[in-house]
């Protein structure tokens, strides 16, 4: 086989694989949302193969979560120690063991954690330690639903993975509350949000061809300007809070993503070199063999 023909058949193969993969990828977003508005971009630093988290933003995001979101939403899969892992909001390069991180020890101790007294066997509350989970504001799902008008606030541990375009979606939703358009019947305990998935046609009294995008959400607008105090000079606005907490949740949903991307770059470089060397070996072996 000549170089050209082998390259040609290779190219054909690659194109076909790319088409198949592309089809598979593009087949899904078509169904991911109902009539919701496409999320706005939060301009996040962690997007793309080279992106990394902004540690200051993650710390602010944690603060917003702790002071605002955590009063209703649990993060059952998160542990305080995870905050101190490489790439996390409180990672300290001088303290390798996340469980011994000084910031995280303080943050954990602020929480009260249910435990069993080892002497008496009675249920007690004690100060949290880095090995503890984030405390859940409700003892169980039923209590969470009952405390919120029947709508259970979803767990936020993996929320950025559980929604299409997660970080941008969370940002857009939190910063995107709007007054409902005139002609939209909003029920009690419901709030209009254009980024929420839903179908509003049965609540719309206007032109049937111009049903507003978006849906109803049971969560009232959670953030107000100036609600959370930032000590690093970042703007204390709903928009900034939303971005920061979206970044924090994106990190919490996949805490190892930046490390994985970084090792991925090394792996890709290796594979390309490996491919090159193997191709030369292939050419050498097949030299002089007509086929």
């Amino acid at each position, binding site marked *: 086989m000549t170089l050209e023909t082998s390259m040609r058949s290779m190219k054909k193969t690659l194109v076909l694989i790319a088409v198949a993969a592309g089809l598979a990828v593009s087949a899904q977003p078509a169904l991911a949302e109902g009539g919701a508005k496409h999320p706005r971009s939060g301009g996040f630093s962690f997007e793309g193969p080279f992106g990394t988290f902004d540690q200051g933003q993650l710390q602010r995001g944690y603060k917003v979560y702790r002071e605002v979101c955590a009063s209703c939403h649990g993060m059952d899969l998160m*542990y305080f120690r995870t905050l101190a892992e490489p790439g996390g909001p409180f990672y300290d390069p001088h303290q390798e063991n996340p*469980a011994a991180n000084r910031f995280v020890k303080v943050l954990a101790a602020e929480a009260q954690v249910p435990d069993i007294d080892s002497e008496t066997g009675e249920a007690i509350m004690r100060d949290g330690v880095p090995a503890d989970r984030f405390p859940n504001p409700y003892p169980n799902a039923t209590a969470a639903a009952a405390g919120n008008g029947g709508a259970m606030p979803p767990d936020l541990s993996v929320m950025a993975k559980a929604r299409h375009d997660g970080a941008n979606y969370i940002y857009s939703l939190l910063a995107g509350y709007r007054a409902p358009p005139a002609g939209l019947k909003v029920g009690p305990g419901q709030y209009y949000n254009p980024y929420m998935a839903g179908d509003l046609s049965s609540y719309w009294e206007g032109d049937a061809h111009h049903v507003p995008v978006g849906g109803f959400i049971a969560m009232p607008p959670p953030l107000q300007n100036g609600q959370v105090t930032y000590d690093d000079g970042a703007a204390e606005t709903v928009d900034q809070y939303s971005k920061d907490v979206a970044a924090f949740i994106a990190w919490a949903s996949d805490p190892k993503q930046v490390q994985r991307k970084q090792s991925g770059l090394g*792996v890709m470089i290796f594979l390309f070199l*490996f491919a090159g060397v193997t191709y030369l070996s292939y050419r050498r072996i097949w030299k*002089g*063999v007509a086929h």
Partner: protein
Amino acid sequence: MAADQGDPNHQDPNRRDFIHIAAGAAAVGAGAMAAWPLINSMNPAADTLALSTIEFDLTKVQEGQQVVIKWQGKPVFVRYRTPAEIEQARSVSMGALKDPQSDAERVKDGHQQYLVVIGSCTHLGCVPTFGSGDFGGWFCPCHGSHYDTSGRIRKGPAPINLVVPTYEYVSDTRVKIG
């Protein structure tokens, strides 16, 4: 290939020149790179490592007794020794010991009444029984190792003394193990 025979430039395709060695080496490297995460995944995970220290309140132990606590899945003996037991441990001559170690080396200064040892027999890991055996310490029911009141091996198949874990006094009555 038959046609190749007359070709003066013909080379044996099996000839190992640099490029084949490089490709082969890269393949071996790729295999090792792929194997490492799989092997490493069996090492203790982050949640396991996070539980590597515990604190214990010494006032829970009465004189002459021991409390067994669980640390990293293993029993830890915390023993409040009587003056007679301490004296017994100190009076042993080094020559009588299989694994020579003074009692002072096995406790913390000023807290010699408290002995903290990992409660697995150094022979094959059974948990020795408190207060039995020929030396007033522990006796391992599995293969008959006798330990003294300092947790040192005195008789039987165990090769070394009961292991003293890393621990420190965070206050006069509290120890942090690990």
